[in-house]
């Protein structure tokens, strides 16, 4: 039983590290702010969620795992909110979309309203 728990913990934590690595490479390689924001939001939810899920599986049901579940829940709520705030601030201060991107739905909706 301990062996199964250890193997499951290792799989969960290393897949979380894989998502951290993929998100960080995307942060370097992608062309503009909005696409980088998309990559780092995946990094937040999947990387942190998987690594802390590995810790929860390792620890069983204790007070520590309740705190870990609270951290995961809180980050799942706040990470998209922060990403939305950054994207809105970037658009309002006039950061251009990537040149090959043909669609700008947010700008179209702003023009319709005004």
């Amino acid at each position, binding site marked *: 039983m301990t062996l199964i728990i250890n193997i499951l913990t290792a799989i969960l934590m290393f897949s979380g590290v894989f998502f951290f690595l993929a998100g*960080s490479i995307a942060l370097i390689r992608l062309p503009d702010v909005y696409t980088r924001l998309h990559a780092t939001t995946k990094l937040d939810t999947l990387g942190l969620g998987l690594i802390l899920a590995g810790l929860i599986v390792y*620890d069983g049901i204790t007070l*520590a795992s309740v705190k870990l579940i609270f*951290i995961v829940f809180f*980050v799942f709520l*706040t990470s998209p909110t922060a990403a939305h705030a*950054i994207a809105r601030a970037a658009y309002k201060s006039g950061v251009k979309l990537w040149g090959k991107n043909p669609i700008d739905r947010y700008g179209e909706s702003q023009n319709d309203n005004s």
Partner: protein
Amino acid sequence: MNLFTAVLLGISFTSFLSLYRLLNGPTVFDRIVAASAITTKTIVVVAVLSFLYDQDIYLDISITYAILSFLAILGVAAYIVKKEENQ
């Protein structure tokens, strides 16, 4: 090598990758995005350290750090929007 030590080394390496965008970003928003990625990694590092040292109190530090980084990012974004609207 311990499993937790290996995971900590991997997360530290990816933090250094994000540091490139923090130092080199063309706009200020690239730097904010990189900073938020690094704060997420710091939350995970503190949570794993709590298991490595077997000290539950580190998890409270992790929760506090999550709340503080969220408020800091929202504050910076709201500040920049306000500044643009005033000009």
